[in-house]
Each structure stands twice: as C-alpha cells, then as structure tokens.
C-alpha cells in the first residue's frame, strides 16, 4: 500500500470515530489525542485497525502517546519502518 493511501485511511478512520466534528484544518499534524478527538476505547479499535492495515501485530512498546500524536507520528511508528 502506498504511503498516501495509508495516510488517507488513517485520516478516514479518525474522521469516522472523532468525538467532535473535524475542522477543515484537520491535517497530518493535527494532535488527535490532545484535542480529545479519540477516547480510550477508540484507541483499542484504532490499534486493531492499524494491525489490519499493516497486516500484523504492532509492538506494544510502540503504543504510547508519542506514536498517537498525529497522523505523521502514526505513519512513522507503524508503517514507515517494517
């Protein structure tokens, strides 16, 4: 899967699950946790989604606030290195 496609899917997932409507400025650097867009249950679902997308388990040590800051950090934590 191409990088743009992955980023697009991550973005779609966040838009679908966001607790508040995303503004037009929502981008790959928008802080998703800080804005309270996702809840703790969302994180579980999101991790399962990411695992589906990359076709394998993610390392629990990578599941932290740093990786889940925004789409850029998500991409580099779970997709850029394999």
């Amino acid at each position: 899967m191409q990088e743009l496609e992955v980023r697009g899917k991550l973005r779609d997932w966040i838009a679908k699950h966001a607790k508040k409507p995303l503004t037009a400025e929502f981008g790959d650097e928008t802080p998703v946790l800080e804005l309270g867009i996702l809840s703790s249950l969302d994180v579980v679902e999101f991790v399962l989604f990411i695992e589906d997308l990359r076709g394998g388990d993610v390392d629990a040590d990578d599941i932290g606030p740093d990786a889940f800051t925004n789409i850029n950090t998500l991409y580099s934590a779970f997709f850029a290195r394999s």
Partner: protein
Amino acid sequence: MQPQSRSLRSGFLRSLERFPERPALQLANEILSYRQLFARASRLASTLSRHAAAAEPALTGVFAHRSVTAYAAVLAGLLRGHGYVPFNPNFPTDRTRSMLVRSDCRSVIVDAHGARQLAEVLAGAGNGLLLLLPEQDDVTALAAHWPQHRFLGARDLLDAGPPARAEIDPGGIAYLLFTSGSTGQPKGVMVAHRNVTHFVDAMVERYAVTEHDRFSQTFDLTFDLSAFDMFVAWERGACLCCPTQSQKLFPGRYIADCGITIWFSVPSTAVLMGRLHMLKPGKYPGLRYSLFCGEALPVEVMRTWGAAAPNSILENLYGPTELTIACTLYRWDPARSPGESEQGVVPIGEAYPGMRILVTDERQEEVAIGEVGELLMTGPQLTPGYYRDPGRTAAAFVTPPGHGEVYYRTGDRVRRPRPGQPLVYLGRVDNQIKIQGYRVELGEIEAILRQEAGVEVAVAIGWPVTASGADGIVGFLGTEAADTEAIRRRVISRLPPYMHPSEIRLVGEWPLNANGKIDRKALRATLSVDNRTQR
C-alpha cells in the same frame, strides 16, 4: 499536642509532619510534596472559611477533574472540618446540577474543567453559593453575571494557615457520593469519617504501605474507589500518581513511566490493556499489588495480568459505596483459585476485618450453607445511609429478623460459603429475571457465552421486555468477529430452552457508564432502537 480524634484528614496531616518533602501528588509534569499540597489546600480552606456564611451544611463541593486544584480542594474541605462532595465536569450538567442542589452544599471549589461548565450548572441552581476559582485571576465578569452568588478568584486567596486543629465528629460526613439509583434519581451516600478510617487502617496494614509506594489513580473522584488511592497513599506518606488524559489512554506506559507500585482499576481496564498487547509477560516488574474492583473479575484477566506483573500480588476487592469502598477481598492464587472460581469469575473472598456477612432469602432469613441468596453486610464500614432520604435508607439498611443490628442489602447474589471457602459473586439480584415464568440468572448465560465464544466479556440481556420480565435473551459478545450462529448452537446445547439466546450480537466497543463499567441500559437501548431481527 493534644491527640485528635481520627478523621479522614488525620493520615495526611501525620504524613505532612513525618515526610514534608516527599511527593504527595504527581500530575502531568508537576510533583507536589506534602508541604506544597498542604499549602495549596490550606489556602483554599482558609479563604472559604473567611467568606462562608455562618450556617452552612458541613460540606464543601469539588467541581474539578484530574487537576492539582481537585486534590487540594478535597483536602481543603477536610481541613475545614467538612466532608467533600465531588462533582464531575465530564458528567452531563443536568446531573451535576441535580447533585449540587440535593447536596445543599454552599461552598464549591472549581478548577478550569469545572469553570467551562459552570454557567450551565448554575442556571437553575438556586442562590447564595460561594464559588472559589483558584485558577482564575479575574472573576468580576462571573460575579456581574450571577449576582445571586459570590465568586472568589486567585487574587482573593488568603495565606496558608497552620494545620487544622478543630475536633471532628468521627460520625460526621467525610464524603458524600452520589450513586445512580434505579429510579433515575441519584442517591447521596453519606460516608462517615469512622467508616473510612477503619477501611484505610485495614488497607495500609494488609498492603504494608510505605512512603516509597506510588499509587495509581484510574478512578475519577465521583467513583468512591478513588478514595482508596488518595487516603491509603496519604496515610503512609506515599505518592498519588494521577494520570493525564493521554496517560489514561495508554495505561501500560503510565504504569512504567510513573513507577506505579500499587495498581487499582476496574477489570475492564485490564481487558482493554490485554487487547492493546500491553500485558506481555514480565512487563510490569515494579508492581507490588494489583487490585481490581467494581465489576465481576474474569479468571482470564488474572492469568494474563499475573504473567505481566510477576512480582505483584493480585487481589479482587468487592463492595458497594454504602459499605465504604470495599468490604470483601480475595487473594488470587494461580494454583488454587481457578478451582474456587465459578462461571469463570474470581471469588470475592472474605469480609474485611470487623465486617460480618449474612446470606439471606427474600424475607431476610439466612439461607443454608451452600445455598444462594442476597448478600447483607454490617460492621464498622456500614455507612449512615442516604443523605436526607429516610425512605430509601430504610429500604436498603434493614434489621433482619432475629438480629439486633442494621445490615446493608447489597442487591448482589452470592452462595453462602462453607467454612474456609471464599464468597462467590453470582450476579445482581436484579440480573435475575423471569423469562416465560422461569427464574433466570443472566450471569449463568453470560458464563456459557464467554466459554463458548472464547471471549473475556459477554452480556446477556432479557429481551423483549415484558411486564413480568422478558420473553427471551439476546447475547452480546465483546469481539469484532465470530461465527455467531455456531456459537449460538453450542450455547443452546448447554442451556434449557427458556435460557436460549434468540440472537447473538458482536460488540467491538462496549458502551461504558461514567464509572467505566459496562452500561447494560445502553445495550438494551440498542435493541429497542433496532427493529427486532428475526430468529
């Protein structure tokens, strides 16, 4: 110095003398020593006491959430000789207003979270409140908008006074907590100082708490289990580590980063962590104790948590707010416990020191050993009842025939244990429903659903609802994908016809109530919204 009668603040004040420079509270990047936290609390307390009306109920409201102000405010209430009343900025404002009005508390400390909701809560909340917003410099706009209340801000804060010395009645309210009532009207549970100090004493001794311990705080102040974390930690000079919003999302990282030694959460948190691969073997060697309370604890959670926290003792705590935080406990033993568990749920064990158990039938007569009945308890943790609500107090706090003292009816079903055996939780009395006239324990169906589907959490709901109970059962499984028809066939083969689920649904994301427990009402609501599917 004259020895004072024990109250909920005593432990903190003693730790303030013994360990003034040790951390009492860690929150985000801020660490407050006992001396610093006391100073914050003391300023709030003296400011309120200076401005408060002479005749107010001895209750101080805390409208704050996971902030230094929240914890300083709890202590400030206690320093004033008051009980504290927590209000939660994450609750619907209607509910908060109703709690505020019913509590009749006149002084409320508000942090930035609470301030954002203040206008909505105050609309229709009566007159004459004294509102202290220590994080806000300028409160003139608020004061102009709400002339019927008085506002104090950061500029009005007085200096800290010396530790409080006034005597406190051990039977007075230490905290007033609202729990959801079945009628929809929240009930205010009065918990007395002597109730909590008895509980705290039992806990610090059992867990040999020292000033080096670091306690989790997964619970909001409106959930009484939060009082365990605060007051057991502060009794012995330990540190309370309150997670930030993002730390709460990643509990595994929070345990490691904060060096938690005593973990306490609802079992659902552990289930979530398992799904996030956060319970790998050996992951949390620093945990000394892992405590769970608030819901039925699945055996499977103990296995995975025990492996992840190899140096930790695992305990299941049980108790309603009315019996002060927790009143029975059970220590998990990997060899013995699976055999003592029933329906895949860990036993709730034995009564706390001084607490006594009665297992009764509908007439509150004790059932025979081995029989199932409602759990009643009494002892030093028995709270005085519901605030200004003698009717509901009398219904729940009863004197069983032939007994000379008041017991609290928990509404929970247990088996009366043989000597030496642990108590086993079998579900709510009101989870026992009539289906086509048969008495059905939903917990039994849930246990079989869990086993046959291989999931940790399953819920059975009586549906569709009828005047006498329900016509059938719908099962919910906590998983994204499963062959529901195959599972249903296996479940059916193990249950009598009237207990057969007519349908099994998958739930990726459980609806949770404000305290993080599975919200059965919300599940039932999904059934009433959807058109009934056939089968």
